[in-house]
C-alpha cells in the first residue's frame, strides 16, 4: 500500500529540479542566460539555482544572445554541458546564425568528431495577449533544420524527465517549454501546469510521442497546449459517443512516426492541431507522414488546425480567433465525423 502523499510540482519547479540534480551529478553542467540568476528565470525555470550553485555556474548574461549562445557552443565543444536560455523563442532572430549555422551543423561538418552536448531552452506560446514578438512557438522553424533535437513537453512530469535526458544527450537539444504550463503565479492558473513529479531523478525519452487518451473513432495529434485542448475536446466528444484518441507529440525532431501510424490504423481519421503557423508546419509534416505511409488506412481526408498564417495579434478577440482552442477542435472533429 502506498501511504505517502504524491509529490506535486509546477512545470517551472520540475525543470529547475531537473537542472539542479544534473548540476549536482555532473560538474560540467552550467546555466547561462538573461535574468536566470537572482530572478530565477523570467519563467521560473532556474529558480533556486544561483543560491545553490553560485554565480560561477549560474551566469546572468548581458542582452547579448549571439555572444552567450555562441559561448555555450564553444564550451560544449570543450566538453562542458551548457544550458543556455533564450528568454522568448521569438528572440531567436538575433542569434539564429549561432543556432543553425553552428550549433546544428558543427557536429555534422566535423564528421562526428566534435560533439555539442548542450541544451538551448526557450519559452514558447501565446494566449496571454503579448502580441507578435512574444507569443510564437516556432516549433517548425527549429524542427525543419537538421542537426538539432527539438522537444516540447506538455506537463511537469515530462518537463523534468525530458530535461534530464536533454542534458545527458550528446547532441544539441532545443528544449521548448510553454509559458502557460510553467504554473507561474502571474499567469492563468491551469491544472495542466501541476503534476505528480517524483523527487528522484528519472528520464523520459526525447523521441517518443505518448497516447494520452485512448479512442477508436478519430486520432487527434497535438503538442503542449494543443494536447490539453484536444483532451478537453475529446471529453466533450465522448459525451456524444465519439471516442477520440489523443496523442501528445512531445518531440518534434525526431518525430515518432510509429505512434501516430499505429493510432491511425485503429481510428482511420486524423486531426492535427498546432500552435504554430499552418503552412509548412508540424501539421503538414504529420499529414505527409500519413499520406506516405498510411494512406490506405484513411477513411476521411486529413484535417488540420493551426495559426492561419498571420502573426499573433494582440487584441484578445483576435488572438482567440487565430489560436486553436477546445471549441475549434470539437467542431472540427464533429465536421469530420459528419463528412465521413
Amino acid at each position, binding site marked *: 500500500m502506498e501511504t505517502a502523499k504524491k509529490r506535486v510540482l509546477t512545470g517551472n519547479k520540475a525543470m529547475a529540479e531537473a537542472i539542479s540534480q544534473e548540476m549536482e551529478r555532473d560538474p560540467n553542467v552550467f546555466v547561462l542566460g538573461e535574468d536566470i540568476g537572482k530572478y530565477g528565470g523570467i519563467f521560473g525555470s532556474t529558480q533556486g539555482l544561483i543560491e545553490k550553485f553560485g554565480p560561477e555556474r549560474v551566469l546572468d*548574461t548581458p*542582452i547579448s544572445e549571439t*555572444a552567450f549562445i555562441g559561448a555555450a557552443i564553444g564550451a560544449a565543444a570543450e566538453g562542458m554541458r551548457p544550458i543556455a536560455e533564450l528568454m522568448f523563442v521569438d528572440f531567436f532572430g538575433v542569434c539564429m546564425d549561432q543556432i543553425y549555422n553552428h550549433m546544428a551543423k558543427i557536429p555534422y561538418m566535423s564528421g562526428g568528431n566534435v560533439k555539442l552536448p548542450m541544451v538551448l531552452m526557450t519559452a514558447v506560446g501565446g494566449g496571454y495577449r503579448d502580441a507578435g*514578438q512574444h507569443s510564437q512557438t516556432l516549433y517548425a522553424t527549429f524542427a525543419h533544420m537538421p542537426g538539432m533535437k527539438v522537444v516540447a513537453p506538455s506537463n511537469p512530469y515530462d518537463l523534468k524527465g525530458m530535461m534530464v535526458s536533454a542534458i545527458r544527450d550528446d547532441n544539441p537539444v532545443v528544449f521548448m517549454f510553454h509559458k502557460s504550463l510553467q504554473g507561474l503565479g*502571474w499567469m492563468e*492558473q491551469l491544472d495542466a501546469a501541476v503534476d505528480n513529479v517524483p523527487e528522484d531523478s528519472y528520464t523520459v525519452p526525447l523521441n517518443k510521442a505518448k497516447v494520452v487518451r485512448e479512442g477508436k473513432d478519430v486520432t487527434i495529434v497535438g503538442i503542449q497546449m494543443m494536447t490539453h485542448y484536444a483532451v478537453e475536446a475529446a471529453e466533450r466528444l465522448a459525451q456524444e459517443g465519439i471516442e477520440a484518441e489523443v496523442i501528445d507529440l512531445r518531440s518534434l525532431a525526431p518525430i515518432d512516426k510509429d505512434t501516430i501510424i499505429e493510432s491511425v490504423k485503429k481510428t482511420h481519421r486524423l486531426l492535427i492541431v498546432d500552435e504554430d503557423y499552418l503552412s509548412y508546419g508540424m501539421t503538414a509534416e504529420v499529414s505527409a507522414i500519413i499520406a506516405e505511409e498510411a494512406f490506405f488506412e484513411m477513411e476521411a481526408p486529413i484535417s488540420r488546425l493551426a495559426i492561419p498564417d498571420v502573426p499573433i495579434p494582440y487584441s484578445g478577440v*483576435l488572438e482567440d480567433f*487565430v489560436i486553436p482552442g477546445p471549441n475549434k477542435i470539437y467542431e472540427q472533429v464533429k465536421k469530420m465525423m459528419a463528412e465521413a
Partner: protein
Amino acid sequence: MFEEKQPAVSMEKMVWMYEQMVKIRYYEDQMAEVYMEGKTPVFNIGAGTVPGEMHLATGQEPAAVGICVHLTKDDTVTAPHRPHHHAIAKGVDLKKMTAEIFGKETGLGKGKGGHMHLFDPEVKFSCGGIVGAGIPHAVGAAMTSKMKGKDWVAVAFIGEGAANAGAFHESLNLAAVWNLPLIVVVEDNSYGISVPKKSSTSVESNDLRASAYGIAGAYVKDNDPIAMYKVAEEAVSRARNGQGPTIIEIETYRFLGHFQGDPELYRDQTEVPGLRQMDPLLKLRKMLAESESINETDLETMEKRAKQEVDEAYQFARDSSYPDPESALKDVFSS
C-alpha cells in the same frame, strides 16, 4: 538640483517639456490603474481591460522630452518595449495609441500590435518588443534623410541593456561610416530587467563607447531634463548639419518594475523611495514655480489641460469597439 539656476533654455521650451512630462506621468499613472482592472484578486497577465506585458516609463520622462523638444514631425523616433513617454513626446495620436493598448479597432494598429508595437507614421514614430531592434531602423531613416537631401534626423531610444546587443555596435559603426544624422539615446535606468548595469556592461557609461566609432558622445546625469535639453540640442544640430551621429546616455530612474507585476526582488526596498525623492517632475515644477515669468495658476492650468487630454484618450479607448475577430486575417499583405 539641476545644474544651473538660470539655464539658457527659453521659458517656452521649458514649459513645453514640463507639460509633456505631466502628460506622460499622468498617462502612466492612469495606465497602472487601468492595467489592474480585471487582474484582482488574482493577478493574471492575460486578463483585464489591458492584458499582456506592460512596461511603464514613470520617472524616465526627461530622456524623452529633453530631445523631442528639438524634433519636428519630419524627424523619426524609434522606441523600445517601454515606449509611452517617447510616443507622447513625439506627438503620437494619444487617442489612437490608447485605443491600441486597449486592443480596440480604432487603435493605431487596429488592435493587432498593442503596447509594445505602436506605429504612427503621421509623426514617424515606431517601437518594438525586441531589444536593440529599433536602432538599425533609425539608421534607415537617417539614410533616407541623407539620400533625399533633407535635414531630418533620426533618434533611436534604447535602454542601457540594449547597448550590449549586436545591433548597437553594427548600427553605430554603419551610421558613423556613412556619416548619418542618427542620435542614439541610451536611457540608463540601472537594470536590464533584473540584471544591474555594472554586471552587464564593461564601461561606466555608454557614451564612452562613442570613441570606438569616432563619433560624439555625451552624458547626462541626475535625470535632468534641462541638461538633456542642452546635450540634445547640440546633437540634433550636429545631425542636421551633416556632422554625424551622437550617443547620449542619460542617467534615469525606473520608479516601477520592469513590467507591471514584477516582484522586484532583485533590488533593495529602499531604492525606489530614494529615487522618488529626486523626482524630475517635481524638480522641474519647483524650478518653474520659482521663476518670475510663470505663476502657480499658469502651472495649474497647464497641468489640468495635460490631464484632460489624457482622460479624453482613455475615454476614447473605452468607448471604442473591439475588432471583428475575422479581421485578424487582414493586413498580412497590403492590397
